[in-house]
């Protein structure tokens, strides 16, 4: 119970009275909003994906496009969440501004995204974090055992088992208490960022010629060539890879879809809005903007440094040839971190880089666990589903049972990610389901100031521009960003969405795993069924669920 102390000043007079505090600090919320696009991991996945898949891509432009989309979406989420600072994110925002059936559907869409992401990031933990880290250190320490372990852990079924172990451990930590989880979050994030900064500093202080020399020395035992750097460029050229650095704007716009997949979730702290201190103030939205600045600022800096020291042409080439085992014979994929590790082969330095890089993995997995838990909580609090589902443990004050259920439910998603032939399919499906939510929240932001005038006027979101509520502009922006993202992913098969490029009808009338629109429709229909079943069930108990979503007119 915090309070206004008895005090007098020229601006206000306050008296002794009780008040309250919440569990999550604004700084924790900022970190939380960075995590959906953990700079270290997004760099590893997106950059190397787009450089080869989209020739002539201007990565800087992709990031700017994504940052604009993210800014618009965060505005709609942030301004609405400041009015309704309750945990449950899109469910709370849409149910109070549009319709609860759509809100449950949206919750399922984001839940599906989170579960799919839990699956592929869980598998990625071994595949692109622990495995390469062990191999990196093994190479530096000249230890074939570590290199062998690195290869083993990145392969099936170890990648899936490591992913499940990670999810189970995270669920256990979250079951112990949110404050403890926030401390774990802070330290993992700090370590990840320190490693990121050290890598950036290493690149900044290394010249291109120095990198080429170091890389050739590093690669020589595996390629048995004196100049592996230029060898990979030549081989990529021969294979027909476009290594031109001239911007192809069409490809750049399409490639921005790859960054949008990770970069438009800076509103994720709305899942915890009810637990964030001062969530009813502008700090709520500002925490998203700070998350956005950290995410995109650090990625932009790192890309600039990679281009400066390693070179765009080589990055494209080495990524392109890394899929050909007759050409690329190094034990590690050419992620940015393994390339930086080639600069200084000191074992301690490489181990430090590797360990700090691994820190990102549990962070990105943990936020995927938070979303379904908080969504189910919000449903249960509104009595759409039985309250027992969100039962709180008396001792830890956390939903132990629900966390356990989520951990077990992650198994099929881990299996699917580990044993798929098309890894990007899951990233694609996880991405496409987010866009309808951005559109729905955008519509909600447009309508809210007019539908629930009293709540809007009493809030800090009551800000107008040219006589129109600022929320309306951001609502329109969120709709445009959502439609733009959906269009990219539904239209361009290069991004990996099953059925992309076919007619909308073909993408709709298929199985949910084979078409993004089919998955969206399935989630929305499931949402409507759950809501109306819940409503009928509660009506039989004398509870009218529709009352939950009304605003009482003050006049």
């Amino acid at each position: 119970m915090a309070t206004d102390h008895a005090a007098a000043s020229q601006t206000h007079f306050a008296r002794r009275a009780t008040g309250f505090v919440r569990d999550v600090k604004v700084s924790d919320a900022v970190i939380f909003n960075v995590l959906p696009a953990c700079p270290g991991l997004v760099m590893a996945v997106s950059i190397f994906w787009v450089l080869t898949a989209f020739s002539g891509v201007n990565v800087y432009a992709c990031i700017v496009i994504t940052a604009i989309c993210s800014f618009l979406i965060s505005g709609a989420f942030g301004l609405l969440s400041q009015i309704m600072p309750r945990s449950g994110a899109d469910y709370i925002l849409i149910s109070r501004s549009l319709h609860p059936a759509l809100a449950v559907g949206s919750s399922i869409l984001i839940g599906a995204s989170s579960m799919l992401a839990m699956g592929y990031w869980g598998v990625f933990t071994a595949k692109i974090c622990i495995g390469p880290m062990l191999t990196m250190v093994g190479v530096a320490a000249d230890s074939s055992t570590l290199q062998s372990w690195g290869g083993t852990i990145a392969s099936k079924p170890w990648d899936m088992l490591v992913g499940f172990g990670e999810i189970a451990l995270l669920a256990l930590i979250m079951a112990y208490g949110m404050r403890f989880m926030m401390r774990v979050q802070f330290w993992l994030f700090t370590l990840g960022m320190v490693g990121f900064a050290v890598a950036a500093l290493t690149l900044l202080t290394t010249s291109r010629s120095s990198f080429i020399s170091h890389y050739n020395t590093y690669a020589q035992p595996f390629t048995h060539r004196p100049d592996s750097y230029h060898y990979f460029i030549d081989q990529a050229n021969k294979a027909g890879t476009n290594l031109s650095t001239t911007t192809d704007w069409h490809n750049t716009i399409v490639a921005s879809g790859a960054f949008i997949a990770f970069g438009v979730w800076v509103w994720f702290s709305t899942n915890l809005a009810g637990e964030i201190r001062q969530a009813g103030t502008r700090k709520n939205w500002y925490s998203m903007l700070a998350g956005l600045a950290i995410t995109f600022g650090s990625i932009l800096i790192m890309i600039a440094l990679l281009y400066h020291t390693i070179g765009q042409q080589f990055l494209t080439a080495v990524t392109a040839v890394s899929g050909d085992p007759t050409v690329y014979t190094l034990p590690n994929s050419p992620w940015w971190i393994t390339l930086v590790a080639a600069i200084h082969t000191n074992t301690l330095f490489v181990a430090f880089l590797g360990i700090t890089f691994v820190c990102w993995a549990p962070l990105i997995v943990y936020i995927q666990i938070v979303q379904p838990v908080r969504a189910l909580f919000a449903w249960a609090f509104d009595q759409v589903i039985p309250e027992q589902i969100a039962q709180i443990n008396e001792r830890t004050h956390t939903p132990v049972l629900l966390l356990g259920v989520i951990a077990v439910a992650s198994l099929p998603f881990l299996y699917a990610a580990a044993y798929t032939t098309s890894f990007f399919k899951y990233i694609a499906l996880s991405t496409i389901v987010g866009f309808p939510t951005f559109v729905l929240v955008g519509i909600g932001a447009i309508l809210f100031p007019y539908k629930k005038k009293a709540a809007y006027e009493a809030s800090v979101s009551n800000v107008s521009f040219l006589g129109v509520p600022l929320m309306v502009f951001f609502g329109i922006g969120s709709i445009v960003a959502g439609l733009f993202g959906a269009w990219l992913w539904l239209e361009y098969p290069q991004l990996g969405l099953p059925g992309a490029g076919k007619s909308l009808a073909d993408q709709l009338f298929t199985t949910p795993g084979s078409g993004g629109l089919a998955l969206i429709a399935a989630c929305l229909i499931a949402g409507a069924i759950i809501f109306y079943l819940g409503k009928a069930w509660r009506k039989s108990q004398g509870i009218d669920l529709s009352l939950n979503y009304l605003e009482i007119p003050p006049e």
Partner: protein
Amino acid sequence: MGLFKRKKEAEGDDALRLYYASDIHGTEVLWKKFLNAPKVYDARVLVMGGDITGKVVIPIVQEDDGTWSARLFGGRQQARDEAELDGLERRVRGNGMYPYRTTHAEVDRIAGLPEEEREQWFESVMLRTFGEWIKLADERLAGTGIRCFVMPGNDDPQALEDCIRQGVYVESCDEAVVEFDGHTMLSLGYSNRTPWDSPRELDEDQLYQRIHDLSEQVPDMSRCVFNLHVPPYDSRLDTAAELDENFTMVLIGKEPHMIPVGSTAVRQAIEEYQPLVSLHGHIHESPAANRIGRTLCINPGSDYHTGRIAGCLVTLRGDRVVHQFVTG
């Protein structure tokens, strides 16, 4: 389908819907919403469970050029005419604060008052505003047949009770047992001791004694509603940050240490008397419903600064109860 078979007794003619809210802390828009709740929720009984008055007075100072100015939300707000001044005052009231038209000289005078005198001045501002609220309630409730019970909480001054009693359609219920539609409601707005030394606090044994004395007036606990401002100890309705003697949060690893801060006396009384339902406020950040024995204990929490009133609909029929949290 048995699942959807309507339980007639839950919504039958003799079912009574009660709307409970608490801790609005001087937010006028919430008081207005509270009074309009019966229209939206079809409730026949309204209960305001305490901590009704605000914590901050905002001086709106007349400048030499005739305009009015105030510091609000970290910025200077200016009103050039009466319409803008009304708008400014509405914004102040809408955020749980009291506007006070004044001069620079008076602001300086009040700032220089001893604490006790300043508290008295503060109380006079609060009571004047609350008197207006009571008049508004009488206007809105007249002829509706709705019973509206209001009691002060631990943060409210003792004199608030006199204001409540001036209402025609607003009924005072603090430290009393009232009856409606075959049910009784036992009310007590005092809390156990808090670090704030707020106006209406009691030791646990005193709190228990008062509840005990009131309970003797209750004919049937299975049809009784407890309306006790402070929630029962360690009930999930009472989790808040621990404070030290300097009102600073106790941190463990840089995080606030959350502890149960409810009343052991209230818990003991609920365990012993087992009323049908007990309604609580006081701890804003701990909204929850939980059973202690057969008693359903409810705290709807409070987000008064958001302009939305957190409340609970409680449907009573005989010795059965159904609850629903609503934020309007």
